[in-house]
């Protein structure tokens, strides 16, 4: 227990530094954009030079860059992400409103890709080099070559436009008056296509990792010993080979979270899902740099949290982790 806690503390300190670099880096990048929030606001509303001046003063945009960075960091310390120009609302509220949809999409897609991917990986890795392994390996490579947004479009043409089995866009039926279980079922039916589009691509990744890991384990001496002792093959595959190949997949789960978040930007835009990714696209379209900055930060925090969770899970799964770091 203390081992996991020590690891957690070490990782937390490192994460704070990393997040600080992310904040300063993205702040400076977005500062380099031509025009500021006031320009974007005036384009949509109109107004004279006097209004521009007073708005700049109001939002503190007339101050120097280091001052504004300091102000931004100070506000961040109070969990204040500032005001969105395009929506005229606090950015924190906007993000908190959209975040659950993205989390739902990500968790479901991760469960699909990890579950089905590792299962198929076990099927392929049970007999490396067999016909079944070859078919699955080539198939997963082909799947991995498919752009997620295009898969989403094709799926929606087939299942929403032609067959009319599933809704084409959104997260739930508008003003359906559904509640409780019926509402959950409604949301689930809206999630099927986006989750499939996002999850199927990464399924290939877990399949290939599982298969490669198992092929490696098969070559080890203890597996030969198990075969020699006449242990049933099915038991060797599941209890010994697959189990030993599973750990790297858990690490991948953390590394993959950033890519999944990136992928959800396009998927949410294909399915008009009101999530964080769609918000990012709206921020880009409206040149709302403070909102984009807020989204980048929240995504980074999310990725850090997922990786912390993976580290802790890893420490429980593998007793060797953390023991060598006891002195630090």
């Amino acid at each position, binding site marked *: 227990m203390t081992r996991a806690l020590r690891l957690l503390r070490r990782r937390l300190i*490192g994460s704070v*530094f*990393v*997040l600080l*670099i*992310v904040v300063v*880096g*993205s702040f400076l*990048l*977005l500062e*380099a*954009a031509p025009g500021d929030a006031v320009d974007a606001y005036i384009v949509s509303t109109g107004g004279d030079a006097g209004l521009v001046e007073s708005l700049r003063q109001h939002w503190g945009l007339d101050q120097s860059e280091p001052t504004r960075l300091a102000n931004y960091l100070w506000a961040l310390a109070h969990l204040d992400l500032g005001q969105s120009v395009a929506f005229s609302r606090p950015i924190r509220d906007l993000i908190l409103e959209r975040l659950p949809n993205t989390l739902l999409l990500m968790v479901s897609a991760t469960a699909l890709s990890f579950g089905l991917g590792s299962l198929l990986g076990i099927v392929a890795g049970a007999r490396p080099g067999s016909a079944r392994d070859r078919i699955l390996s*080539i198939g997963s*490579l*082909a799947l*991995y*070559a*498919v*752009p*997620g*947004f*295009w898969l989403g*479009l*094709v799926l*929606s*043409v087939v299942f929403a*436009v032609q067959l009319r089995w599933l809704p084409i866009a959104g997260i739930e039926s508008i003003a359906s008056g559904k509640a409780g279980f019926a509402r959950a079922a409604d949301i689930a039916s809206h999630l099927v296509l986006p989750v499939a589009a996002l999850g199927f691509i990464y399924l290939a990744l877990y399949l290939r990792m599982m298969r490669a890991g198992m092929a490696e384990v098969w070559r080890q001496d203890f597996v030969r010993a198990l075969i020699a002792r006449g242990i049933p093959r099915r038991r060797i595959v599941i209890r010994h080979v697959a189990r030993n190949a599973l750990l790297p997949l858990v690490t991948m789960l953390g*590394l993959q979270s*950033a*890519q999944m*978040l*990136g*992928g959800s*930007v*396009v998927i949410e*835009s294909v399915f008009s899902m009101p999530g964080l990714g769609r918000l*990012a*696209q709206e921020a*880009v379209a409206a*040149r709302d*740099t403070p909102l*984009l900055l807020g*989204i*980048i930060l929240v*995504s*980074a925090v999310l*990725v*850090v949290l997922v990786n912390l969770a993976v580290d802790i899970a890893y420490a429980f799964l593998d007793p060797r982790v953390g023991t060598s770091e006891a002195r630090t």
Partner: protein
Amino acid sequence: MRGPGMSRMARFFRSPEAIAGALILAALALMALVAPLLFSSDPLAIAGPPLTPPFQDWALPLGTDRLGRDVLAELFHGARTSLVVGLAAAAASLAIGAVVGTLAGFAGGLTDEVLMRVTDAFQTVPGFLLALAFVSVVGPSLGVVVAAIALSAWTGPARVARAEVLSIRERDYVAGARVIGMHPLEIAFREVLPNALPPVLALSSVIVAAAILTEAALSFLGLGDPNRVTWGGMIAEGRAVLRSQPFLSIVPGVALVLTVLGIYLAGEGAVEGTAVRRGLS
């Protein structure tokens, strides 16, 4: 049995997957090269009545899109954009990664710590989000798209290069270079870096493929170079008539899938070729 003298090339062509990949890539390169010769006019110019279905007019074999542009010409010119962006972005991210990884691994200490925390920071921000922000700040053009993709893809090569440099820097020839008084930077980049390159270069097929997919996604969201035909842009363009003419979005998507698959297959063949040589397979 195969002898040690068998070349890497010969081993590459023993695998049917690698041959398929090489053929796809050759066809693609040909498409990109002959695009301006076959369709000398501007692919963004109007070529016929809008939404001509495919296989109706021999002058427009794949028909036209919503604005009456020749789909086949767009497809060929799109191959150019995809290949140029994919190769340039991959080359840039491999170069950045190799330099950062070598500096971090060779210098060690505080330099290593700072560079690796920066690498961590880049890996923490979702790459696509970073590319999106970068393009929206600087403005969409081919060079900016390449830079944006490189910015989100250099971390993998940097980690691999660093790990390799860490194992190389204790070798005798490096100590020898120190003894004869070579400047540390000269040792790092002229002695260590070239020897650390093979595992970094092994990543190139995956990085080219990812770059092509990222470019397609950016163009799909309307952040590609507006003066060039891109497959992602074609898919987005066809989306407006997805119900009546799904063909317009499906064709460029198939081209994307085949391209990326070709790169993966050829890349796997090449890596297997070297792995056999090292006795890993």
